[in-house]
């Protein structure tokens, strides 16, 4: 399920667990509204990596994903007052991240810049780099609607109902779309990996 479980999240500040790190999202939001920037930093630390995974799944570029996540957090911070009492903070955040990623994807397409694409590994490419390139290629070959649900599910935090809320589709659609996304992804991955599978 979405929402925050303090002990499960990485402490991005690299410090011990303080009282503020233990606060639930809604308490942190209240504090941010009164100008407490440290609470905002805790929220960012709690969700930044997962948000980055979602954006990366859609954009396949770390730099673009970081831009999308930063823009999402800026928007979140500016409109925090609108969130109060309207559901799960993490779902709202991921929705903004998806929207920002899609917006960036459109901009990137308009600018006709190409992302790094997969090419058969050269002698210098190590196995990890190759595995990452294969995954990126598989994701970019997927239609956007499939890679979005795949990215949202890949962070292992959101259930089908929450994903449905984020992409504004029925739960049944999420279920079938995710099944199709995984099938297409696995087929393409097998194709690119060849004998190594």
């Amino acid at each position, binding site marked *: 399920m979405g929402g925050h479980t303090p002990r499960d999240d990485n402490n991005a500040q690299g410090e011990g667990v303080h009282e503020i790190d233990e606060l639930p999202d809604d308490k942190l939001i209240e504090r941010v509204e009164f100008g407490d920037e440290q609470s905002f930093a805790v929220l960012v630390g709690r969700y930044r990596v997962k948000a*980055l995974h979602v954006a990366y799944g859609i954009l396949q570029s770390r*730099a673009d994903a*970081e831009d999308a996540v*930063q823009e999402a957090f800026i928007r979140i911070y500016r409109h925090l007052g609108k969130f109060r009492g309207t559901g799960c903070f993490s779902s709202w955040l991921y929705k903004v991240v998806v929207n920002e990623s899609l917006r960036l994807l459109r901009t990137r397409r308009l600018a006709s810049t190409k992302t790094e694409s997969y090419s058969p590994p050269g002698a210098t490419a190590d196995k990890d780099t190759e595995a*990452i390139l294969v995954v990126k290629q598989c994701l970019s070959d997927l239609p956007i609607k499939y890679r979005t649900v795949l990215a949202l*599910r890949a962070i292992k935090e959101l259930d089908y109902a929450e994903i449905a809320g984020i992409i504004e589709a029925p739960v049944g659609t999420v279920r079938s779309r995710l099944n199709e996304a*995984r099938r297409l*992804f696995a087929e393409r991955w097998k194709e690119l990996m060849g004998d190594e599978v």
Partner: protein
Amino acid sequence: MMRCKQARKLFSVYLDEGLSLGEAQDFEKHLSACAGCREQLESWQKAGAALTAALDADAVPSTSLEEFVSACRSGEIQPVGSLGRLVQRLSAPRRVVAATVAGSFALTFALILVFWAASLSTSPLDKELSVYSNRFGPANVLALGDPNRAGEEEW
């Protein structure tokens, strides 16, 4: 007995442990008898693991948390609480224009109201005229202050 087509529609939910007990039992029964579905499910699991590994390895922040929060701040972030919210509202150019226009309308409306209210209220001179009018009638009041008619009437 579940067929391959049915089973393959459930792969994703099975991997997410979302099947009911009965569905899971039927599904696993099919898997144990179907090498094709077993192989396909295995490739889904491997591809899923590759995706997770790629995200963990490559989708990592390139900046520290402090740098990131500071970068968010330089994106014109303003505190959203109490006074901060007002500051934020006024900081955006569009909002400044909107606030100025709304303020001008409000001020104009207020001035109109004040003048209108003033015109309705009774001035000291009106009160005085009213007293005379009651005492002597309209004709006498008309004569007040008129030097040509002075003395025509005796008070």
